């Protein structure tokens, strides 16, 4: 990663003048201080606890207490008051609500749902969104995925409603009170940086496997953006307007409803959009804990490496993501919605009503399906035979995967696992302190230590090695494309819609094509992670590079700088903040996919979660989940630039 750029003092520079200029930089001074502290403390740490992985003396095994807690919960789920009068009601309400929505969707029938979706899309985002909606729902039906799609929709509807409610309430509190905002904000920021898998185990512990825990996990995962953006929206209202409203004698409530909320409309819509997208992403992943629907079809197919079946269920997920994103982002960017002639709306309404009345068979008609599974599997088998290995000159995808695993991942993993634990702690502290504050440093160091204390050092290093390698690949490709985007408007125009689509897709679907290409193992997980993280990196870095001050660019050109010099010495330094943010995003996104990569043989911490779920060994899963959260926190803090970068998201 960026080790070399942040530890320049470690290189022996004989030139003292150069050393002095270096020392004038605060980052260098901090790293030097840490290096000294490390030199002093490391021998003691070594003497006391040795220098291998995390020392046993400093770790606590939570397995036994967690296991007995799990057993107690299973034994008392049908008798203890806590479950009968509290969790039971929560679960009951969720199941009732999902059932209600599902029954309504089924009663509407395929024609009703399709036309209804088109109507909503048209009202919210215009004619093109409506056409997209119709086409997408038709494809879901054609692929024989109608019922799973409706199940996912029903679960989503309930989860989104709850997320928006919880998020808006939290956001309102944080938007109106400074203290709440200060407390809530780091929590929300952190929650957004954690991989989805970390949220699954606690709900399973209490509720078991099923739809209720799936909805709860989805709510916890999807509510933070709504809360964050509501708070930010309320806080960014124009003080002049507020003063004017106040002088009119409006009460607190009136001010909120008539001025602050309408002025925060853009952020609220953006929050809704992000919440919906995250809910979809999680609703699909939650199939691992029994969410059913489209995600379950993908999960079933992945566990038997049936690429055709996975694709048949993956396409509806992608289409659902596109429809939901188009529909809910319609009003938020400020451009007027193009609805065409009002007659379009009436026509849609009429079709909805007609569809509702006419379709006696509510399921998608049985004959109207296209079987894609077999042709896709045949194509995949052809690929296995012809592209996997032995292509003269370039090898094959399986060869690449083997090389990536053997030459990059294995040495990196072995290196990290052989690194003395105090060395890892110092390294993390140095990285975090060089670009952050003492607070981020402390959080990062504590998180890393927590992983050790929980006894997951080895698997965490395995996961970390996968993250580092995938982030490196992402950054090389991402920055290269970002440079091209920054240089040419045309490239940017061509890429933008592609990036838009890629950014809205749930993490889960990226696992499907990589299994087809690379088989099972750590390499496909890395490939999925790179593809998932690339759009955000390209977008952020591209914007940063483009915004580099044109005067600086011009003066550098007039000084005879070549394109390369200009890029390295002017554009990159000027865009430093955006590039750091891009690195941060890359790390967070890559981690989230590397973790779910466990479903395709990725290993590491994610695998322990899958293992814990599969064996009903919640203790293992919970501890691994907590370690994932710590790793996410650590990586986020290590790469978090000091100021204001997060608001650019």
């Amino acid at each position, binding site marked *: 990663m960026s080790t070399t750029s942040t530890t320049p003092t470690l290189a022996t520079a004989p030139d003292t003048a150069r050393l002095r200029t270096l020392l004038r930089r605060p980052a260098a001074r901090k790293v030097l201080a840490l290096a000294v502290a490390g030199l002093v403390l490391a021998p003691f740490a070594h003497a006391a606890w040795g220098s291998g992985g995390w020392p046993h003396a400093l770790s606590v095994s939570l397995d036994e207490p967690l296991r007995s807690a799990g057993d107690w919960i299973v034994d008392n789920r049908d008798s203890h008051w806590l479950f009968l009068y509290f969790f039971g009601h929560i679960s009951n309400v969720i199941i009732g609500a999902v059932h209600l929505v599902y029954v309504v969707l089924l009663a509407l029938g395929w024609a009703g749902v399709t036309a209804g979706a088109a109507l909503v899309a048209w009202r919210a985002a215009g004619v093109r969104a409506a056409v997209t909606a119709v086409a997408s729902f038709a494809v879901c039906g054609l692929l024989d995925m109608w019922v799973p799609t409706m199940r996912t929709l029903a679960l989503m509807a309930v989860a989104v409603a709850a997320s928006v409610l919880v998020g808006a309430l939290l956001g309102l509190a944080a938007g109106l009170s400074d203290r709440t905002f200060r407390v809530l904000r780091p929590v929300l920021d952190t929650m957004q940086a954690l991989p989805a898998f970390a949220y699954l185990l606690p709900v399973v512990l209490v509720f078991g496997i099923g739809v209720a825990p799936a909805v709860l996990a989805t709510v916890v995962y999807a509510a933070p953006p709504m809360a964050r953006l509501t708070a930010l929206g309320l806080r960014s209202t124009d003080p002049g307007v507020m003063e004017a409203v106040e002088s009119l004698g409006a009460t607190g409530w009136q001010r909120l409803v008539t001025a602050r909320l309408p002025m925060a409309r853009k952020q609220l819509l953006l929050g809704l959009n992000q919440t919906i997208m995250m809910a979809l992403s999680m609703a699909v992943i939650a199939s691992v804990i029994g969410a059913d629907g489209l995600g379950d079809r993908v999960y079933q197919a992945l566990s038997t490496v049936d690429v055709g079946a996975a694709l048949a269920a993956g396409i509806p997920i992608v289409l659902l993501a596109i429809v939901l994103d188009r529909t809910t982002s319609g009003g938020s960017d400020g451009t007027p919605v193009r609805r065409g002639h009002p007659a379009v709306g009436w026509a849609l309404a009429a079709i909805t009503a007609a569809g509702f009345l006419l379709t006696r068979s509510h399921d998608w008609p049985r004959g109207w399906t296209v079987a894609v599974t077999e042709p896709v599997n045949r194509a995949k088998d052809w690929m296995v035979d012809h592209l996997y290995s032995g292509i003269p000159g370039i090898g094959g995808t399986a060869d690449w995967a083997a090389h990536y695993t*053997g030459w990059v991942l294995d040495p990196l993993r072995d290196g990290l696992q052989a690194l003395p634990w105090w060395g890892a702690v110092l390294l993390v502290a140095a990285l975090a302190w060089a670009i952050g504050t003492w607070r981020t440093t402390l959080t990062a160091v504590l998180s890393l230590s927590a992983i050790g204390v929980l006894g997951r050092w080895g698997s965490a290093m395995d996961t970390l090695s996968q993250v580092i390698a995938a982030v490196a690949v992402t950054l090389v490709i991402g920055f290269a494309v970002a440079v091209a985007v920054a240089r040419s408007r045309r490239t940017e125009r061509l890429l933008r819609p592609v990036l838009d689509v890629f950014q809205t897709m749930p993490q889960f679907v990226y696992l499907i094509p990589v299994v087809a290409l690379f088989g099972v193992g750590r390499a496909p997980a890395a490939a999925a992670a790179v593809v998932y993280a690339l759009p955000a990196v390209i977008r952020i870095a591209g914007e940063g590079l483009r915004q580099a001050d044109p005067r600086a660019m011009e003066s550098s050109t007039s000084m005879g700088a070549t394109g390369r010099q200009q890029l390295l010495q002017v554009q990159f330094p000027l865009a430093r903040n955006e590039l750091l943010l891009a690195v941060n995003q890359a790390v967070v996104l890559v981690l989230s996919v590397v973790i779910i990569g466990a479903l395709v043989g990725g290993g590491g911490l994610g695998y322990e979660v899958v*293992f814990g*779920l599969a064996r009903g060994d919640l203790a293992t899963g919970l501890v691994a989940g907590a370690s994932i959260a710590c790793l996410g926190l650590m990586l986020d803090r290590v790469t978090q630039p000091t100021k204001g970068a997060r608001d650019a998201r």
Partner: protein
Amino acid sequence: MRGKWIAGAVALGSLGAFALTGCGAADMTKQGSPYANAAGTKSVTLSVQSWVGARANTAVAQYLLEHELGYRVDTVQVDEVPAWDALSQGRVDAIMEDWGHPEQEKRYVSDKKTVADAGDLGVTGHIGWWVPKYFADAHPDVTDWRNLNKYAAQLKTPESRGKGQLLDGSPSYVTHDKALVNNLKLDYQVVFAGSEAAQITQIKQFAKDRKPFLTYWYEPQWLFNEVPMVEVKLPPYSDACGTKGEAEPDSVDCAYPTSSLKKFLNADFARKGGDAARFLKNFRWTKRDQNEVAQLMAEDKLPADKAAAKWVKAHPDVWKKWL
């Protein structure tokens, strides 16, 4: 402070919950799937496991329930152990093939009575360690566990960290391999392929290159028709060893038992499930039947419903009795 928020949200949520469901007790172990029995259909939810034999059972049961008895069948993928919990809670109605989970059986069948035994599947299952026939022919003494350490060097792979590789499939399957390797002092590393499909891919790859391998595997399995394998003899199974292993899973030092595979139903479903419950209780076929469907699915790549339809057409004498 965060706690306060969570507490506030929880309080609010529970208030809403009470408002909606009334103030009585709400037993979450009696709450089924929200998708079951929607819009007037009779539906059955079957737990489906990832190995192909179990998918063959489920495929045929689903086909017959849908086409002969007019049910709507949902399949949900749940791993073996959580499936018991889901079964007891009524989130799935039936497990079609269980390889023996004494701890769960005691908890749910005898103690809580939320799960009902639905009889044998008719297939006997055996788990063990296997080596390919071509390897056993060349080195006949490899089929005794005492000689395994001699061959550890030949069975090394990049993933096995310098030891011999013992290939396992999905971590969710019944396995004591880690304990066995430890207790028998074998110089081997258990490597999980991650899924059965991945394990099959690897075995086929090995067989194609005529490379030696040692794998966790089980009977009945159609792969034996393609890659002939010979079982490695482990210390013989005894009831004493079995009981010890139940109490202390890390202490297992003998072979896997040969067990009769069983079906289990949710207790309420077994009582009130009508035709479907009766059908699932009667469902009983042989190793040959199961392998036939499994091979159609795994080798000929037929979708589950087509494979089931093919078998159903060919063997009415077997399934007519179940209805």
